[in-house]
């Protein structure tokens, strides 16, 4: 098996690895993990978690594809259309991932197993819900031992959620600085003083941070025994603490955008009708990315046509709002994503990158970039050709809206600053995008002065 087909994010766990073969993702279970894997399958733990929709189901293959000598069994997990990471999630997405991890830990304990790690990277989003994907994270439970992944849980779930709750600010980019979780002493120093008087926060963060100092070996205390009830109390305490957390609602830059936009004559209905008309003419569109999705009005339109849609926006409040709507309305075809296109998530980790960049992960049939171009070109000073290259990397077919300088929103953006954008006009826009795309259709959006383009990516 070529080593470059092994997905680099699975290098940390010696129990097995994830690899791709002919476009399908597989997981190899190594012989060293045989006993634990068999226990997961035979104890009823796997079937119970899958039945609840908490664990991604897999099928066991009779033949090994990887042909490595340490292999025990090859699994073909249910395939996910998109992989995202916690630095791209909104507050409630991280909170639900945390609560799911705790629920799985409790369920495992009832089946004589335990989670040996508790990281948000083990959770992905499938059909609108969080799902645990790492079938190698389960170990045999020894009641006398505390939870091996407790610190990891506190650093990578509890710490960022508590900080966001108390600071009233979305802090998901902290995961880029500390991919393995926010250090507890730092969290402790940033949390308000009053949090010391909350029993759960005091125990899991303040006391934990204080006791984490020094170089004592982790398992040095062999005299004190743990118990199943103590473990369940610990999980229950973490659950109680996290369930109460919320991101204080704020009037963000873009919340209410569509209410405002709807008042502009027949702008929105005309745009919706155009997009719908073009999509109905397109064939073989199964996946899409809605760039600048806002509250997801157009993502919903795509999802209603059975198109799996990544709804990306740089505003974490909008995405959180969309995620809450996805939960309430049980929408299964939309993946909300917090993404700043002027600074898309980089690849992180040693050497080639443990986690792929946003650009490496995003290859959709359709891209939607509505009322976005002026924010990138004027708001962020990004030249048209760089925006075109970004779109060409993300999708094959593109529906993009051009917003002219005469538009009142652009005028508003240019207010109080020097207009250095002499090249911001339709001809330059078409010219830059023509380097990557062929313009198939072009139509004005009602009387707004804005133009909608349907483009097809040129063959490489």
């Amino acid at each position, binding site marked *: 098996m070529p080593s470059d087909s092994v997905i680099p994010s699975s290098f940390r766990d010696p129990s097995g690895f994830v690899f791709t073969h002919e476009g399908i993702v597989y997981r190899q279970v190594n012989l060293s993990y045989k006993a634990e894997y068999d226990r997961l399958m035979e104890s009823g733990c796997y079937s119970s978690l899958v039945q609840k929709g908490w664990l991604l189901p897999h099928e066991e293959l009779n033949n090994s594809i990887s042909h490595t000598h340490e292999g025990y069994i090859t699994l073909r997990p249910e395939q996910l259309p998109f992989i995202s990471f916690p630095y791209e999630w909104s507050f409630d997405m991280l909170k639900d991932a945390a609560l799911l991890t705790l629920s799985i830990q409790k369920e495992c304990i009832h089946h004589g197993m335990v989670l040996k790690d508790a990281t948000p990277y083990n959770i992905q989003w499938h059909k609108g819900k969080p799902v645990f994907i790492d079938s190698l994270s389960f170990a045999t439970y020894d009641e006398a031992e505390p939870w091996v992944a407790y*610190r990891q849980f506190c650093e990578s779930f509890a710490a960022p959620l508590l900080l966001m709750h108390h600071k009233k600010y979305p802090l998901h980019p902290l995961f880029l600085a500390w991919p393995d979780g926010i250090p507890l002493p730092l969290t402790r120093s940033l949390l308000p003083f009053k949090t010391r008087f909350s029993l759960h926060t005091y125990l899991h963060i303040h006391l934990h941070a204080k006791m984490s100092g020094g170089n004592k070996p982790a398992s040095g205390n062999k005299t004190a025994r743990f118990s199943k009830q103590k473990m369940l109390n610990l999980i229950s305490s973490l659950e109680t603490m996290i369930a109460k957390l919320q991101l204080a609602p704020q009037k963000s830059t873009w919340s209410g955008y569509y209410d405002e936009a709807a008042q502009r004559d027949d702008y929105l209905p005309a745009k919706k009708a155009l997009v719908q008309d073009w999509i109905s003419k397109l064939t073989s569109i199964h996946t899409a990315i809605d760039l600048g999705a806002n509250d997801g009005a157009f993502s919903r339109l795509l999802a209603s046509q059975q198109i799996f849609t990544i709804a990306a926006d740089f505003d974490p409040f909008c995405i959180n709002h969309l995620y809450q709507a996805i939960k309430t309305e049980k929408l299964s075809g939309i993946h909300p994503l917090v993404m700043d296109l002027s600074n898309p998530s980089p690849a992180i980790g040693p050497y080639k990158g443990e986690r792929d960049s946003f650009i490496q992960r995003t290859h959709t049939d359709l891209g939607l970039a509505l009322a976005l171009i002026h924010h990138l070109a004027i708001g962020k000073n990004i030249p048209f050709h760089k925006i075109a290259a970004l779109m060409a990397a993300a999708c094959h077919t593109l529906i993009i809206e051009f917003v002219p300088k005469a538009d009142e929103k652009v005028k508003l953006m240019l207010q109080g600053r020097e207009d250095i954008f002499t090249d911001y006009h339709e001809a330059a826009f078409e010219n830059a995008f023509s380097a990557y795309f062929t313009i198939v259709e072009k139509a004005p959006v009602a009387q707004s002065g804005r133009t909608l383009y349907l483009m097809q990516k040129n063959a490489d």
Partner: protein
Amino acid sequence: MHILLYIDPGSGSYLVQIIAAAALGVAFFFRNIKNYIKALFTRSDKKPKDNPPV
């Protein structure tokens, strides 16, 4: 412990769990008594606490 420790559980993290579990044992003991007394005077139409998170 049988688990292959490929993540560092953290120095002090085991000890803090032992202390936290003891403190929580006391806290939950009194909470249960409070809930029991409360339940005597109110109708028990509460949903079970063990709901799935999502």
